[in-house]
């Protein structure tokens, strides 16, 4: 990989054109543009997309925001659909119907609903079969397109429309699924977990690695959602920073089974700093709910320790 220059990277032509209908302050499109900037000049791409906010807002007939070839099939099958596209590429190349010098890359995007849940089997199959593709999950921690229902990526205690906070409820009762680890356990060549950082270097570097590592690669990008998380749109970058600094969303990568921390906070911040910025956790700060914050912190600590242990292994 070349040395990273923010200005240079940001000046690359956009492959997701403006004019799409995604919300202001949405993390998904920022992540998509960041991933696509990692494509090398001259390389073509076929973009896949699971049904979700990104799909219905970026390709509304007769307009498309995508500069590259794009395929949306359904909600639960982005992995399988791109498997077919990538295999067709092999077939056409082998049979001389596509020139040797043409270089296509295969990248598919899905939200956490389409990736952690309904599309999990299709993703797992595509990863296990080792198609030369990148699956990018934009994880905003709930089914945002249908109106903020909980997913298996939703953190504990989050207030969602199917885990509403009420007299008898403190939001979602279960912990978040660790999908990055699960995909790493598929023994794929590359898994990267990242989010939007101030210089976008982590996302760029991991996207480039994922795109240019042969085989099935996976990126899990935390992308806040202003509607679901309930924050002011200009706070998105600060929320991402706090997710990393509290170790709620650590940055790491797994290359051929080797786990590496990409960033270690000098001083791990208390989880309250991340939670207090978001309306979905407002109830945790009510009097009498102190033990919920303690439990949340304990879970973050346990997972962070576990990750450190994995990364410390030679």
């Amino acid at each position, binding site marked *: 990989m070349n040395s990273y220059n923010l200005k240079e990277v940001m000046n690359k032509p956009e492959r997701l054109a403006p004019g799409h209908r995604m919300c202001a302050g949405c993390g998904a499109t920022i992540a998509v543009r960041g991933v696509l900037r990692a494509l090398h000049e001259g390389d073509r791409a*076929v973009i896949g997309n699971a049904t979700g906010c990104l799909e219905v807002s970026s*390709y509304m007939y007769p307009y498309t925001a995508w500069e590259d*070839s794009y395929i949306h099939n359904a909600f639960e099958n982005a992995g399988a659909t791109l498997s077919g596209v990538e295999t067709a590429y092999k077939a056409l190349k082998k049979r001389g119907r596509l020139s040797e010098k043409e270089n296509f890359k295969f990248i598919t995007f899905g939200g956490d609903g389409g990736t952690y849940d309904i599309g999990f089997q299709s993703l797992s199959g595509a990863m296990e079969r080792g198609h030369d593709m990148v699956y990018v999950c934009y994880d905003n921690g709930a089914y945002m397109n249908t109106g903020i229902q909980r997913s298996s990526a939703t953190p504990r205690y989050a207030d969602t429309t199917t885990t509403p906070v009420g007299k008898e409820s403190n939001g979602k009762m279960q912990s978040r699924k660790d999908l990055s680890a699960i995909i790493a356990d598929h023994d794929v060549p590359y898994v990267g977990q990242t989010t939007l950082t101030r210089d976008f270097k982590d996302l760029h570097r991991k996207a480039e690695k994922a795109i240019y590592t042969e085989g099935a690669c996976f990126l899990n990008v935390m992308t806040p959602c202003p509607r679901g998380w309930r924050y002011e749109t200009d706070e998105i970058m600060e929320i991402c920073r706090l997710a990393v600094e509290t170790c709620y969303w650590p940055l790491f990568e797994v290359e051929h089974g080797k786990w590496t921390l990409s960033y270690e906070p000098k001083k791990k911040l208390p989880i309250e700093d991340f939670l207090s910025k978001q309306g979905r956790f407002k109830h945790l700060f009510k009097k009498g709910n102190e033990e919920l914050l303690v439990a949340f912190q304990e879970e973050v600590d346990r997972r962070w320790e576990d990750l450190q242990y994995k990364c410390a292994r030679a």
Partner: protein
Amino acid sequence: MAKKDRMSGNEAVAYAIRQINPDVMPAFPITPSTEIPQMVSTYIANGEIDTEFIPVESEHSSMSAAIGAEAAGARSLTATSSCGLALMWEELLVAASNRMPVALALVNRTLSGPININCDHTDGMGARDTGWIQIYAENNQEAYDNFIQAYPIAEHKDVHLPIMICQDGFITSHAVENITLLEDEQVREFVGTYEPEEYLLNPGKPMALGPYSISAYAMEARKNQEIAMENAKGVILEVADKFRALSGRGFGLFEEYRTEDADFIMLIMGSAAGTAKQAVDDLRKKGKKVGVLKLRVFRPFPATEIAKALSGCKAVAIMDRCESYNGNGGPLGSEVMAGLYREKIVIEAVNYIYGLAGRDFTVDHVYEIFEELEKAVGEGKTVEQFRYIGLRE
């Protein structure tokens, strides 16, 4: 040129796939169609063809991957049965609405429950409104011949629709019969190479597929799809003509067997048509004026053509190897009767249900049904509709 052999229906379709050598085949095993992907995998393993096989983790994924491959510019196909087809139902609609000429070898099997692996047409009939062309075979020869005609029909520029080539589970798929095969070169020339106008891997000409479409546009897309299905009727006949020139074996939308002067006709689809023909031959020897209308093309449904073909007879037995659970008979019963009404052809029409979940259907059943039709017309007896044939007492 023609080669004589003995093959099961599954072998015959796998052999046709070998001769076509398509680009991509994703598949997931399910009885009784499992042998097809197995045999194709063996052809690939032995270097006889270089199709890319994707061993997907479900039938939903096999159709999803087939759509992806087809959209990318590759000729693709899969094979399935029963629950496999049911699982890919959503994707059947996506394939058709995106106008992907994917081929599917369907080996008809009943659906659960109770779980049962034997033949009826519940799977294919369940997919009857998904926008796929559906062609049914009576035997291994027809399964083979129909599969070779599949891509020229589906990929035709006036059609651009996916196509299902159906044969009866076990009865056809596993029974070994004599077959006449074409030479590999003949098949390759007949089918040609896939040359889509628009595809994802077209360098410098990107394409977007699968939009969200608001109400102001979506209805026109449906209408275009419907027009394509209507166009398919003519194209199926054109392709059949070319195939006749090549093989000497002719096909229409349906086959009329000894119907010219028939007073009583049995309308039937799939392998049981063979049984019905045998019974007709027996009854003809006894002077009965009976015949068989064997439906080959179920989608597009040749309602007018069927009605006209039945216009000269006194009564028709419409045979459904499927229960619709609508209190109104089977799918063939409903559609044929609607066609007769529209053409203002008033004949006695009785809908029977037979052969569910592999229940035997014999010549004795056919005799019994013709006798019932004869009584209905001759003695004015009301005949029970939607009667189950061969049901245990």
